[in-house]
């Protein structure tokens, strides 16, 4: 095991790496129902 290869990926880091564009990131960005509106 090469511990130097340790890596963490988070939902947010995927966004920051631009691997996912804002629009791609979240299906409910489109349908912002009441639940989404409270937390965006």
């Amino acid at each position, binding site marked *: 095991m090469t511990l130097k290869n340790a890596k963490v990926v*988070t939902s947010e*880091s995927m966004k920051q790496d631009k*691997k996912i564009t804002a629009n791609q990131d*979240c299906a409910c960005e*489109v349908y912002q*129902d009441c639940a989404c509106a409270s937390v*965006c």
Partner: protein
Amino acid sequence: MISKLSIPRLYENTYTDSVEGFFLVYNPLSEKGLSVLNKEAAFLFGLIDGKKNIYDILLSAKEKDSSIELTDIIKVFNDFVSSEIAYFDTPKSKTKLFSKKPTHLGVWLHITNQCNLRCTYCYVWKTQDKMSDEIARKSINTIIDSAKKHGFKKITIKFSGGECLLEFPKVLDLVCLGKKLAKQVKIEIDFVVLTNGVLLTEEVAKKLKEENIRVAVSLDGLGKYNDTQRIFPSGSGTFKFVEKGIKNLQKAKVPFNVSITITSKNIENIPDLTKFLLKRNIPFAFNFYRENPFVKEVLEGDDKKLVEFLKKAYRIIYESPPRYSLINGLLDRVTFKRPHLYTCGMGNSYIVVRQDGKMVSCQMTLEKPNGSIDDKDLIKTMEEGNFVRPKNLTVEGKTPCDTCQWKYICCGGCPLLTFEQKGKYTVNSPYCSVYKALIPEVLRIEAKRLIKYGFNETKTDKQEFPSLLPLSL
């Protein structure tokens, strides 16, 4: 600054699981979402016990890999801290996290009571009433004005009904006005059309694209499964029309998603519908049917069946997760965007205006107005319209939610539904057992997505933006 003597600790209620040789860590108090660790990171994470300091961890790590250095350990633990799955000294403050004032105002503009469909579960009593131009323009004006006064930075206007595309010229007029006024007061604004999809012609789709209006299309199943509940007044089904509408949206490259209402009539088709949408790269959201006074038959899915068929649908997504995240649309009112205390924005960041200019707290309570766009301060009307009792009830005041590890993503579910079925707001959702059974499954889907695109991605895996693909249906 991490030193040799720093002691890393784990957050309370942290949820972990293993997924295909990787390790999933979810801290319900994190704003970073889910974390996935490869096996090397998981090994180091496993050394956190609240007693070992970084130097002790280095010594344990050297037994596994003698080449590891202190700087390597510090780097990984910095990643754990920035991913909010571990902390040194003091954990992230809950008070700070929840004291943020909402900056995004959601507006549900019910511009017409008319509809070209008669869906069996609809909560709107259809009439010929529609919003006059005067009320419509005044609504946009006063909403933007009030939002500005109260420090909101962004407004999302959702056009609804009835079928709002029956009033498409009005929608376009209001979008134009909204953009102009929001620009003047420097507020960001965007628009969503909530539609049954039947009127999405090529021309309409083209216009939606031109005006940068996003769309949510309702579709509840394939063929007969959609057609048992989403019907024309004649009783005939709408699937073929909606299918064509979706095709038009894709052709015009309009960003959209599909909103699926799950009832006892279509639950068995949800896995096939999932397959259909994934194949076409269409984002979607599952919503559970909520009973309302206009529906006489029992349409709620049996909990056991809901779990069974949603698990089947989830398995399909898990096997081949799309590049875009579906996590916030897979389980009704459960959302993982960031920890929150209220299920919805009702009374805090959510305005609903009826066709007659009256305001209501929620689109499900259209018959109970609590103010109007003529009021001096719409935000105050919104706040006073919060029907939940006791006032300011958060998930921490609900039983048994207060001790549940999922409380900040579920918040006890829809308060209206809970009250209707249990007679009080201070308890958990009637869907509690369904949410609890499925939340770990949803987390596994998100983990699989992060593994696929965050760790394993090759160039050929890259996909285009989902709804921009003009795929044939």
